[in-house]
């Protein structure tokens, strides 16, 4: 979409950071913690 204004591109980037980078980041962090805990439990056994 080449017709987007600079202001719109700024808001688009802000939206992507807020909803996807941060949101997905929290989910990935959860998955990483879960797999780490699983691994530690396995090693503990």
């Amino acid at each position, binding site marked *: *979409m*080449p*017709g*987007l*204004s600079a*202001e*719109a*591109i700024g*808001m*688009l980037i802000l*939206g992507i950071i*807020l*909803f*996807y980078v*941060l*949101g*997905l980041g*929290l*989910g990935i*962090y*959860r998955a990483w*913690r879960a797999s780490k805990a699983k691994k530690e439990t396995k090693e503990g056994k």
Partner: protein
Amino acid sequence: MILEFMLGYYFRGATPKVFRKIKESLEPIGWMAIINTFFICTYYSVVLAWVMDYIGLSAIVAWKTVEGVGPTFEALLSNPAFVVIGLTITWLIAWYTCYAGISSGIERACAYAIPILWILSAVLVIRGVTLPGSDIGINWLLTPSAQAFSGSAIIDAAGQILFTLSVFGTTMIVYASYLSPRSEIPNSAWITSFANCGYSFFFAFATWGIIGYLMHVMNVASPADLPVPLGGAGLAFVTIPTAVTLLPGAPITTAIFGTIFFVILWLAGYTSLISIIEPTYRAFGDKFGISRKKGVTAVAVLAYLISLLFAFRPDFIDPVDFMVGSTNAVWIVLLEAIIAGYFFGLKVLRDHVNPDAEWKLGSWYDVLIKIVTPIVLLAVLGWGLSTTTHVSPISILTVIIIIVAATVISGFKWKEKKVM
């Protein structure tokens, strides 16, 4: 969201039980929240019935031409018998979903509905942003406008975000009450909120890409100049059908993308509908010890009968929605923050969830709930109610019914047993 998760997870019940355990005299406020939610499902199901009817109407492009779009919607509204068919099917599906239980019903329905929703939405977003003129619409979507701020807009926005997150004192409390012990709470609330808002942000590109295309085809400079509505039911039932009728490759593309749009809308609405039936049943289950099967059936039958009124009088929907879906939702969350913050110790809740939390809640959280949230919500309510023109006798009657019903139900004795 975090507060509702914590209340449900800690007290293991619906709002009346939660508030009663905090202070017995607060039980009626819990019932007000529940009855308010119950009212939402009565008219919301009618909108879903329209959507279900439109899945069929889109598939055959019943409006045939752009000129036929408006009359098709008017014909639907003036033909309650056709709406009742969609309403009955919608209620049967929603009833059975809750009737089947948490895992076999609600969880299974969401496990299928949400991925389908995302896939179909991706199809529509790709079509939306690749249409000629889509950038015009998307520029409008992404460019902030100070002129758009008004009392009604603010209260609508507050109500909308609370509604879309299902934060109105009932659904999230009940859903969290079903979590297993040692569940993670704060990050789950964050992920839920980001997932919801991320979807809304994503799908906005489909809607505004299509509106941009409409502006391009009709050669107008502003969405306000379009001869179609840009909000409420008109956006879904008039503007989008108008736009898909003008798509390249019509009428085949009209049928395909029109049907996809209404299937998406129905799936989104259906998952919301079951989430507002569940807390109503659970509240009565908590208090009267009613089994899931009997409780869900009683709630669904009563709601269905009341929803018939809205099927025959769709003009009642807007004033009731402004009060129940927007204003009362803000009131209830405000009272919830005050009750949890001042009548119960937030530290107790934080200490309960923090051992398993991925992000620990510190004392800053108490400041947010006890001070920031009430101030913001009071400002929103004060500004919104002092400037709105949406309040009508029907809105006031709804509030009176909610208060009277909550007081009467609170007067009955508790016959609690474990409800799942």
